[in-house]
């Protein structure tokens, strides 16, 4: 029972990281570094709560994805069309997200940092599996978004590795000049990658606000957008790798909730578990991870 609860908690903590990390895979595979993912999660959590407050959770999720996509569009215009430094643009996106949500929150809810309570999607019980005692915590009262996130892993993997779209996306990230010579619209592919990351990050933010907490609170993303970037790198730019990495992060968080202050280990060390574990894994287990060759490099036609 304890182990089942631990896994369920890990999964709940892993899902926002996973969704954003999947987004990160798409944008990086298209050769655009996106550290604005955190900001896209923030707007997702705010607009998700806003939409859910007025028109229900489904509309909230859609609005969150649209808001994330809008922020991604700004990032894409900056970096792909104007070839602004991708890191700088990402930082700007994060600041814009913080400022705009606070401004809108004051304007709409008349509260700077929180929304009213909102309700999420109806929870799902998975029929057959919920009969098994061990799995019970994992398969009862599950948020549909968790299932969606898990389903998106093989789908993303298939899209990236097995479809024409995926091949083009990867080629643009590896060698845009070659791709362009072969008649692939490099700009279109890069836009597609960045926008997908915005949609997924927006969904991830909405998960936090609607599915997990039932309320938007400023700063509720707690840097998970950055952790998702780490998960993406750690997962070697592959959706399946991102899944394992996210689960590891989620697991270590869940574990730190369960280590009780015992007097011997100071409290601060318990809260360090997720970070220490991450460092250990990154330095010890991951031997070598290589990203797309042209990631972070702006592409301009006619330049070598």
């Amino acid at each position, binding site marked *: 029972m304890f182990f089942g*609860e631990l896994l369920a*908690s890990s999964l*709940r*903590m892993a899902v926002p990281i996973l969704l954003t990390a999947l987004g990160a895979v798409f944008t990086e595979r298209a050769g655009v570094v996106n550290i604005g993912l955190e900001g896209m999660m923030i707007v997702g959590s705010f607009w998700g709560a806003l939409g859910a407050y007025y028109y229900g959770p489904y509309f909230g999720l859609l609005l969150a994805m649209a808001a994330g996509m809008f922020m991604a569009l*700004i990032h894409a*215009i*900056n970096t792909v*069309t*104007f070839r602004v430094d991708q890191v700088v643009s990402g930082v*700007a996106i994060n600041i*814009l997200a*913080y*400022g*705009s949500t*606070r*401004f809108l929150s*004051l*304007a709409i*809810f008349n*509260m*700077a*940092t*929180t929304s009213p*309570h909102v*309700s999420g999607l109806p929870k799902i019980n998975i029929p057959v599996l919920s009969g098994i005692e061990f799995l019970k*915590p994992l398969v009862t*009262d599950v948020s549909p978004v968790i299932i969606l996130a898990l389903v998106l892993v093989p789908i993303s993997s298939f899209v990236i590795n097995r479809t024409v779209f995926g091949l083009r996306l990867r080629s643009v990230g590896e060698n845009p000049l070659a791709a362009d010579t072969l008649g692939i619209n490099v700009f279109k592919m890069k836009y597609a990658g960045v926008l997908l990351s915005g949609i997924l990050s927006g969904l991830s933010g909405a998960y*936090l606000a609607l599915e*997990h*907490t*039932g*309320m938007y*609170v*400023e*700063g*509720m993303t*707690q840097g998970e957008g950055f952790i998702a970037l780490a998960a993406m790198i750690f997962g070697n730019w592959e959706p399946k790798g991102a899944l394992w990495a996210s689960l590891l992060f989620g697991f270590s*968080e*869940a574990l730190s*909730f*369960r280590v*009780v*202050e015992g007097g011997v280990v100071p*409290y*601060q060390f318990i*809260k360090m578990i997720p970070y220490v574990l991450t460092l250990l894994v990154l330095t010890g287990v991951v031997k070598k991870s290589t990203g797309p060759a042209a990631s972070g490099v702006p592409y301009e036609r006619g330049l070598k």
Partner: protein
Amino acid sequence: MNGRKILAIALVLVLMAAVLAGCSGNKGQQQQNQQGQQPSGEEKLKVGLVFDVGGRGDLSFNDSAYAGLERAAKDFADKIEVEYREPSAGGQDREQLLRLLAENGFDLIFGVGFLFTEHIQKVSQEFPDVKFALIDGAIDGLDENSNVACLLFKEHEGSFLVGAAAAMKSKTGKIGFVGGMKSPLIERFEVGYMAGAKYVNPNIEIYSDYIGTTGDAFKDPVKGKELALNQFKKGADVVYHASGASGVGVIEAAAAEKKFAIGVDSDQSLSATEEQRPYILTSMLKRVDVAVYETIKSMVEGNFKGGYKVFGLAEDGVGYAENDYNKELIADIKPKLEEIKEKIVKGEIKVPVDKTEYNEFLKSNFK
């Protein structure tokens, strides 16, 4: 190429507009206020307030302060003019906001929360003519003539009562506590709660957890919920939180598990949703609103005093909440709670404020 340039410039302008709009959100309100007030002619007392992490709308600590400010603004409408500020997300600009208000000729400025302690100490020395009120924090060496009043609460006394309530209502003999930022202030809540629970049931088992070690811990409902869920799954059936906006997650967890949560600072039954209300046993009231209101009142009446003001059970500065939603729920334990309250006020029960005193409390009560 030209079209691109125009687009680029337009984009920059939009971003700048957004930033400027963000900066001036509050100022717009302020200017309107000032314009509206000019005809009355008479000089009004200017009262400013800077919120803590979590900000207005945390349904807890800050909202309680806001309630006091609002009430004062209404009652003394012709004498004072109020304005409030929210610090940036990380709270780095607390000191600037205090200074900004002081420079703008405010007469009385509140810093809501112990994180303001250093900043008020500094700014109050720079502006000796401005009065400051610090909630939850103590600055050394103040007296009646200082320009700083520290408004302190005996959170441990209120927590003792809700701890007793939790222990009496628990069927499993296990209860929980979720704190926000690990700090001596929040530990007072924890220790008071544990002592209260042990007082009515020496065999009670208490799980205790903190969300984090920084101010961010007061606005992390995701972790708040997970910690509470964990305690519920381990068998606790009442969980008390002292974690500001993170407590939203604790209450959500209680509603999901159909167990009890105990709110903090404000009466959280009132702000909860219809579905959550049956699962909020009570709230530990910390009447920040009373403290804010009384301080403004003393200022209006011209007898503001510096130094330390302590609000405990005896002053009705802390207590437990009773409302339409939990009236029946706590009807059976209310007599006992009132009895304990009486004993604390009379000094028959000495409520511990930290872990050392807690251990002594246990030793002296249960040999």
